[in-house]
C-alpha cells in the first residue's frame, strides 16, 4: 500500500518538518519514502506544502495530481487541494482560519482543533505534532515509536529534551480529531 500525502498550510506552521518526521518514520520502518517540498520565497509567510509518499515499492513520481490524504491548515490550501483528494480518500483540516469548510461528500473529512488547543494549552510549538497525532489516529501509516525515533533523528541533540512533550502532543492530537459528515 502506497500512501500519497499532501500537507499544506502557511509557512512557519511546521508543514515541511511534519512531512520530514513522517518520512523519517517511514525510513525507520524500512519503507520507501519521498518528500518533495514547495520551495522558494513563498515559504516565508505565504503558503507552503509538501508531498510525502510512503510505500513498499520503488517510488516513481514525486509530483502528484491526486492524493490519498490531504492535511490542510489554511483556506488557500483547502481551495487548492480539496479537489485533488482521490475519491474515497481522506481530508483532515484544522478549522482555525478556515472560513469555507470542505464540501465534498465522496471523501472522508476530519477536523482537528489543533491551533486553538495548542494556543490554549501553551504548546504552540507542538502544533504540528497535534496534527500528526490526528493523522496517525485515522491512518496509522507508521507507528508512534517510529515517529518519535524520526523526531529524534531530525532534531538536534540539544532539543531532545522536548521529545516527551512531542510524544504527549501526538497522543493529545489523536483525541482531538473528529469525523465530519456532509
Amino acid at each position: 500500500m502506497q500512501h500519497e500525502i499532501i500537507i499544506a498550510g502557511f509557512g512557519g506552521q511546521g508543514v515541511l518538518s511534519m512531512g520530514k518526521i513522517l518520512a523519517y518514520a517511514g525510513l525507520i520502518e524500512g519503507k520507501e519514502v519521498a518528500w518533495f517540498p514547495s520551495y522558494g520565497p513563498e515559504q516565508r509567510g505565504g503558503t507552503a506544502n509538501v508531498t510525502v509518499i510512503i510505500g513498499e515499492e520503488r517510488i516513481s513520481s514525486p509530483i502528484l495530481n491526486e492524493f490519498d490524504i490531504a492535511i490542510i491548515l489554511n483556506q488557500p490550501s483547502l481551495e487548492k487541494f480539496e479537489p485533488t483528494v482521490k475519491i474515497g480518500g481522506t481530508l483532515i483540516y484544522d478549522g482555525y482560519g478556515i472560513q469555507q469548510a470542505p464540501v465534498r461528500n465522496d471523501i472522508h473529512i476530519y477536523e482537528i482543533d489543533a491551533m486553538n488547543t495548542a494556543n490554549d494549552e501553551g504548546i504552540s510549538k507542538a502544533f504540528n505534532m497535534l496534527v500528526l497525532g490526528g493523522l496517525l489516529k485515522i491512518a496509522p501509516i507508521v507507528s508512534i515509536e517510529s515517529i518519535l525515533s524520526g523526531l529524534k533523528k531530525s532534531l538536534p541533540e540539544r532539543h531532545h529534551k522536548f521529545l516527551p512533550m512531542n510524544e504527549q502532543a501526538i497522543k493529545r492530537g489523536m483525541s482531538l480529531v473528529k469525523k465530519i459528515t456532509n
Partner: protein
Amino acid sequence: MNVCVFFQNSAINNLCAAFFHKKAFFKAILQGFSISTLLFSEKVVPLPSVTRNVLSMTEEIKLLKGNEAIALAAIRYGADGYFGYPITPQSEIMETLMEEMPWTTTGMVVLQAESEVAAINMVYGGAACGKRVMTSSSSPGISLKQEGISFMAGGELPGLIVNVMRGGPGLGTIQPSQSDYFQTVKGGGHGDYKLITLAPASVQEMADHVVLAFDLSFKYRNPAMILTDGVIGQMMEKVILPPQRARRTDDEIRKECPWAALGKPANRPPNIHSSLELDSQRMEQNNLRFQAKYRQIEANETRGEEYRCEDAEYLIVAFGSAARISQKVVDMARAKGMKIGLFRPITLYPFPVRELYSYVGKIKKILCLELNAGQMIEDVKLAVECRIPTIHYGRLGGIIPTPQEVLDKVEKLQTEQQ
C-alpha cells in the same frame, strides 16, 4: 519490477539487473560497496584509495535532499575542493559543505567565491593542479560559467559542475526546469567541445553521479556535469552514501596525473596548462585529438534505464525529474491496458543513440517528455533517424506536468495522427 539498466559491458549488465533486485542490492550494501562502485567498478580506472580509510563497512541509509547528497558524496569521494556562489535552488550544496567543515576532517577546501565566474575559474585552477574539484550553480549562474567550462575542455582538465536547473531565460524563475539541455549537450561555451553529462533521477543517483562524474572526468580529462533540477535537488529520499575515501596525496596525484601543475621537479619539463595555440595547424590537431576522445566516450560510456519496455508499442523518452513522472504515467497507462515503456537516458552526453535506435521497427510512437519547449527531442529524432514518429510534450517556466496531464497526452498517441 521490470527495470533494466544498460551498459556496453554485459557483465555490468548483470550486476545492474542484480542491483534492482532489492535483496541483492541490500546484500551488496551490507558487504560495504557503494552502489556506484558496484555498478561501475569495471568501467572506471581503479582508484587505489578505495580500500583505505573506509570509515564504516555497513553504511547507514540516510534521508537526504538531493543537494545535500551531492555535498556529502563529494566529501566521501575524497574531493579536494568546492568553489561556489549561492543561487536558488541549489544553495544547500554549499551550505551543507560549510556545515560539515570537511577541511577539518578530509582536508577538502570549501570556498564561497565572489561570483560564478570566479568559482569556475577556481575549479579550472584546482583541476590544473590535478585536484578533484567541483562547483555547483543553477541556470543563470551556469551561463556565467560557460567560458570557464570551455577553457577546461580546451585545456583537457577534469572537474565536476553541477547544474540544478531552474526556468529561464534570463533571471526566469526559481522553479524546476530542464531548459538548459541544449546549453549543456550542444556546447554551452565557445568551440567544438563536449561536456560529459549525467542526469540523475533520484537522490541516490545524485550521490552516485558525483562519484561517476569525477571518475569519468579524470578518465577522459574532460569536465563533467550533473544536470539536474529543483525537483531532484530539493526532494528527500533514501540514500546510501559512497564509502569514505582519503583524498589523494600529492605523490599519488603526480603518479595518476603526470600532467598536474604541482611544481616542476628538475627531472621533467614544465607542466603548462593552456588552451591557447596560435598555430592553426597545431590547433586543428588538438581539435582532432579532442574529437577522437569524444568518439571514445560515445562508444564506451552511454548509460540509461529501460522501464517496462519489453513488449512496448509506445515509448516515453524522458530524463531526470521528467522520467520520474513518466514512470508513474507508464504504470497508469499499463493499468489501462496500453503497452508502453519508459526509456531514460542517464548520460545525456554521450546520448544513448544505439540503445534508442534498437527500438526502430518495434515502437509505433515516441512521446518525449521534457520540462522545456522541446530540446532532447532533437537527439531522440536523430537517434531513431526519424524512423519512429516522435512528439514532444513539455511545460515551461517552472511548471511541472502532473502524471494525469502526461497520461492524457500518452493516450492520444494511440488515436492522433502524427
